[in-house]
């Protein structure tokens, strides 16, 4: 039982041509840069936007094809819209009860069910508040409750965390994680944040410029990202460029943004274009001073662009030639005195770099 969509549709000023499959109980993260067509795709799946051609089928029932269009109200879908779109003329509990009432449930029963749902989200005390009176996190919980109250077979979440401040985001991410882990239907989470994708979903579809560039379980994307965007997303260093042997079992990979030294593949006897190289962030070692004659072939000086520290592990983004991502323990951030905007030396061994030669 699953969702299968293979569609072509026209958004405001570009074409989205994408194929998505999602299984029940296995949330899919739909990721991609701004303007890639993610929201358009969500609207198509919800039945709010027309397709030009293709099919959308849920659990074997065709929702869209050349001759069929099932109206949004007749799809068993729940949508959490970007910036929520709550009904501001209704209280929180009326918002949540809306889907039940619209489907003909008696007012009293619908309110009771909505109240139960709000209680399960620790929000019962705000049941009678209007959306304008709610904090961002509270409003988001109401939006989520509204979308799931009628137990939809298809749950679509469009950037459910992007409009929230840091604290609310952590709280809602945890809530969604719990919710999606037990959700029996098909769930699709649109996000541009890798952390959300990794924590909320099992599979990932990468959408760029209206095209799907990668569809895989998240673990697979992590080990073999197929575009710089996907690599950045899962937090892996990806380099592409011209590879030439420099002797001594080594080769140099010249990218547009600097060169690195890698081990030379046995088969390489002349320069090769379009070579991709991958480097895990944990294999990048950081120093405050230039490392003295270490065994690592690569030592690159740079400036720290950002530090994302979750208390145990810190992800450091470094502006350098080429730019690098490094994962270090939180302890080493303070031990090395790393600061955003500060200087740093990054080092990694040639053998840690994995090459993907063009076929």
């Amino acid at each position, binding site marked *: 039982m699953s969702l299968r969509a293979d569609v072509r549709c026209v958004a405001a000023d570009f074409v989205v041509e994408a194929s998505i499959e999602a299984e029940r109980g296995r949330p899919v993260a739909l990721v991609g840069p701004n303007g890639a067509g993610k929201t358009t795709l969500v609207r198509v799946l919800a039945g709010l936007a027309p397709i030009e051609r293709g099919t959308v089928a849920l659990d074997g029932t065709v929702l869209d094809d050349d001759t069929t269009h099932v109206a949004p109200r007749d*799809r068993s879908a729940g949508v959490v819209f970007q910036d929520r*779109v709550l*009904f501001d*003329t209704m209280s929180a509990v009326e918002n949540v009860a809306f889907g039940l009432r619209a489907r003909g449930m008696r007012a009293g029963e619908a309110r009771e069910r909505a109240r139960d749902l709000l209680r399960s989200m620790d929000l019962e005390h705000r049941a009678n508040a209007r959306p304008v009176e709610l904090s961002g996190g509270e409003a988001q919980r109401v939006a989520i409750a509204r979308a799931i109250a009628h137990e939809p077979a298809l749950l679509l979440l469009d950037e459910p965390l992007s409009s929230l401040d840091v604290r609310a985001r952590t709280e809602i991410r945890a809530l969604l994680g719990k919710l999606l882990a037990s959700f029996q239907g098909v769930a699709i989470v649109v996000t541009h944040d890798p952390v959300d994708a990794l924590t909320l979903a099992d599979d990932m579809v990468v959408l760029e410029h209206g095209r799907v560039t990668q569809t895989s379980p998240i673990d697979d994307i992590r080990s073999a990202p197929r575009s710089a965007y996907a690599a950045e997303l899962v937090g892996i260093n990806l380099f592409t460029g011209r590879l030439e042997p420099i002797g001594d079992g080594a080769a140099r990979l010249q990218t547009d943004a600097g060169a690195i030294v890698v081990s030379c593949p046995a088969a390489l006897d002349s320069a090769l274009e379009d070579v991709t190289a991958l480097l895990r962030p944990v294999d990048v070692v950081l120093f405050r001073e230039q490392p003295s004659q270490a065994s690592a072939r690569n030592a690159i000086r740079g400036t720290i662009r950002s530090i994302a520290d979750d208390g145990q592990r810190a992800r450091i983004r470094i502006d350098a030639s080429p730019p690098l991502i490094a994962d270090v323990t939180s302890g080493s951030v303070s031990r090395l005195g790393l600061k955003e905007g500060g200087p740093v030396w990054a080092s990694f061994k040639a053998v840690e770099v994995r090459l993907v030669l063009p076929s």
Partner: protein
Amino acid sequence: MRDLPGAVKVLAALAVVAVALPLVALAARAPWSDIGRLGASGPRTALFVSIEVSLAAAALSLVFGVPTALVLARSRFPGRSIVRSLALLPLVLPPVVAGVGLLAAFGRRGVLGRGLAAIGIRLPFTTAGAILASAFVATPLLILTVEAGVRALDRRKEDAAETLGASRWYVLRRVTLPALAPQIVAGLVVAWARALGEFGATITFAGNIRGRTQTLPLAVFEAMQTDPGAAILMSLMLVALSLVALVALRGRFLAR
């Protein structure tokens, strides 16, 4: 903000004075000692007819104006701009022409009037006719106000409702109309105020029959010939009623 040229401010001040002066003059010239005469049967009857006619006309413009506004703002069909111009035509039409037109349509020999007379419905020179004439000129104001509101609505609210399983009617009732409530109220007040002041279309189509179609403006006009003091007092009564409209609209017109 950059300061405005002096001439602009002077002209604006003159405009405000020009509006205020007649009102002040009304109050100054009013025979206040005779105020008790407003309680006499003539003015009182005209007041009741005015209230009945203007409220009924406002209700009528609500019933027909809101659907028209929704269709004009939302539907795409050939000739839409022509339909829109037609719906708003009474705004620019001289009211007396509206009255003559209504007679041509609903008069005893009118296009529809004959059929209506056959089933016992007579509109010209009746209270119902006065209501129709007032609604005719007032409805476009409500349409304009509500249409602007519909265009400003976040359609994703209705999208959300639809994904939640709501029928079109349910979306309209629970989401669209409640979101339009401020514009609908404002449109109602403007339409009511316009109906209250209606003169030309009413006197042409419904006549000036005391107790049936003689509204306050018609009574004022009649009294001007014989009893200017009573006319001024009744005018002040209309000013008081108009102030009610202004207070009701204060969110829109005042404090901006």
